[in-house]
């Protein structure tokens, strides 16, 4: 680092060691103050809207009440309730199953589209815009669009099914189909985002390596597996972490499409948290579930970092 103190450069030769140390210390203190001034607004937001809420969550997991009456300390009751609550377990399972379907699907589709976009000589700009349009929509809008595209009576998909001679499929009213359908809708919405992310990664790759690999006679698939995938590791690292954080928070499309039904087959953790606050007013329970979600995402992110990060 080349931090040069304007006060020192001219007179450096004539300073005594003590004076030199004193000035250096003063300089460091000033830099530290400046740095914290630059970080200030973010640190305030961090404390008020992240740190305090997380601490509040932790405290609330040991308490009850708080909306109408005063809060009471109840020890581990909330934790026991949360772990023995079958719907809590269902909501966790649904969220995990949803993520396990949606994330790989969206990554594979987006990667294929990004490779295709990277390969074509012209016409990329309008294609990129078209692919990106679904990503620009709020999840609830995507949800409503698919409510009619998939509608059992007049949805276009079911016209096709009937035309082919099948029975109409009730995508969102079937306990086994509802969650995959929601995952599919989120894949439709997310594909544009990840395509652009992967395309940016592909665009930044060094071309020379590919020339060398081709001269060595490596085929397209081999080049992809041996060169592209490893070189895109930083992009994947970001993608996996970001997608995990976002998808484990599944709420909007469930709220708009099924409200957790049919028979709780699409209740997500976030939906259950929302219900525990606004329908049951059970803060302790909701806080415990929330805290579990925070810990889970933190641990998963840590694990992914450990597995995916460059070993430098």
């Amino acid at each position: 680092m080349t931090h040069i103190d304007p006060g020192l450069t001219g007179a450096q030769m004539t300073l005594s060691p003590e004076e030199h140390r004193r000035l250096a210390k003063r300089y460091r203190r000033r830099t530290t103050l400046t740095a914290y001034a630059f970080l200030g607004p973010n640190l305030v937001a961090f404390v008020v809207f992240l740190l305090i809420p997380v601490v509040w969550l932790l405290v609330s997991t040991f308490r009850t009440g708080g909306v109408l009456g005063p809060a009471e300390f109840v020890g581990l009751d909330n934790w026991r309730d949360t772990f023995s609550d079958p719907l809590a377990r269902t909501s966790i399972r649904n969220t995990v199953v949803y993520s396990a379907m949606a994330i790989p699907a969206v990554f594979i589709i987006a990667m294929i589209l990004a490779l295709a976009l990277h390969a074509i000589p012209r016409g990329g700009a309008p294609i990129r815009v078209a692919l990106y349009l679904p990503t620009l929509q709020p999840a609830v809008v995507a949800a409503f669009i698919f409510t009619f595209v998939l509608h059992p009576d007049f949805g276009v998909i079911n016209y096709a099914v009937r035309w082919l001679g099948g029975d109409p499929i009730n995508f969102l009213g079937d306990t086994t189909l509802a969650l995959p359908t929601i995952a599919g809708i989120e894949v439709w919405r997310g594909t544009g985002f990840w395509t652009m992310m992967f395309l940016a990664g592909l665009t930044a790759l060094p071309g020379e390596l590919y020339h060398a690999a081709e001269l060595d006679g490596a085929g397209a698939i081999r080049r992809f597996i041996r060169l592209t995938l490893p070189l895109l590791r930083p992009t994947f690292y970001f993608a996996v972490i970001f997608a995990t954080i976002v998808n484990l928070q599944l709420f909007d499309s469930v709220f708009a499409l099924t409200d957790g039904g049919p028979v709780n087959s699409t209740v997500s953790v976030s939906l259950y948290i929302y219900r525990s606050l606004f329908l049951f007013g059970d803060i302790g329970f909701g806080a415990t579930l929330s805290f579990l979600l925070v810990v889970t995402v933190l641990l998963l992110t840590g694990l992914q970092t450990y597995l995916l990060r460059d070993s430098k």
Partner: protein
Amino acid sequence: MTAMPTTEHKTRGTEASKGRARSGLPRSRSAVSLSYVVLFVGVAIALAPFLYVVSTSFKESTSLFSYPPDWIPSPIFWGNFESLFADHPFVQWTFNTLFVSGAVTALKLWFDSMAGYALAKMEFAGRRGVALLLLLSVAIPISALIIPMFFVVRYLGLLNTYWALILPPLANPLGIFMARSFIVGIPDDLEASARLDGASEFTIYRKIVLPLIRPGLVVLGMFTFMLQYTSFIWPLIAVQDSDRQVLAVGISGLQSAFLQDWGLLSAGMLAAAIPITVVFLLVQRAFVFNDLSGALKE
């Protein structure tokens, strides 16, 4: 991680002209054709549902259920849009969404670029600790914080205000790391020479750093704006007053209040898609060729 100008390919004559110069990958004709086919399918799947919405929004709800479905409504029915603008505070929702998203984006770009500068270029006590704390908090799921956030915002007396929508998103630390990854690439000599000329850190930030990272900030800005434009769960909770609500929540209310009026709902979705699409078209060039994934690299 931005695209570097690939001048070296000019010397490669045949190879560069056969393939694309962008990253120097030579392409066979069949690979290019296959790519176009794949992209055509992708675009069709991305756009077809929108055509459905456009078509439905110009139909009277009674003609929706005709079989087979007619894609082109005849006659064109404007009633859904009339009802949307006359019976619902749709213009107000649009304004609220643009205002809140714009404010969050502007404030975040400002704060994140300052914080990113501090983390990228300043040596100060506690730097590693602050960076680690902020990096950890990237992984805190916001929807797990809705309950405490509700009480914090209520305690501050901000429920049902624009502040309730603008302030909490500022705590999302991802942008700091994106900004830092843009700033790390600026050569130290640039700031050092400015510092020798007696420039303060704030002057260096404003006069040297900000102009240099502008392309990155456009991308970060679009990203922030989009996240904000599509946010749902927090506005749903923080604002009860319909006149202060954002588009996403307002539109979802069209459904429950008026039992599946598909025509109206489609009109609302179409009208809601227009502002964000326009914003995206304005900045899309910058958006594509910048890689945000550098944010999480040490």
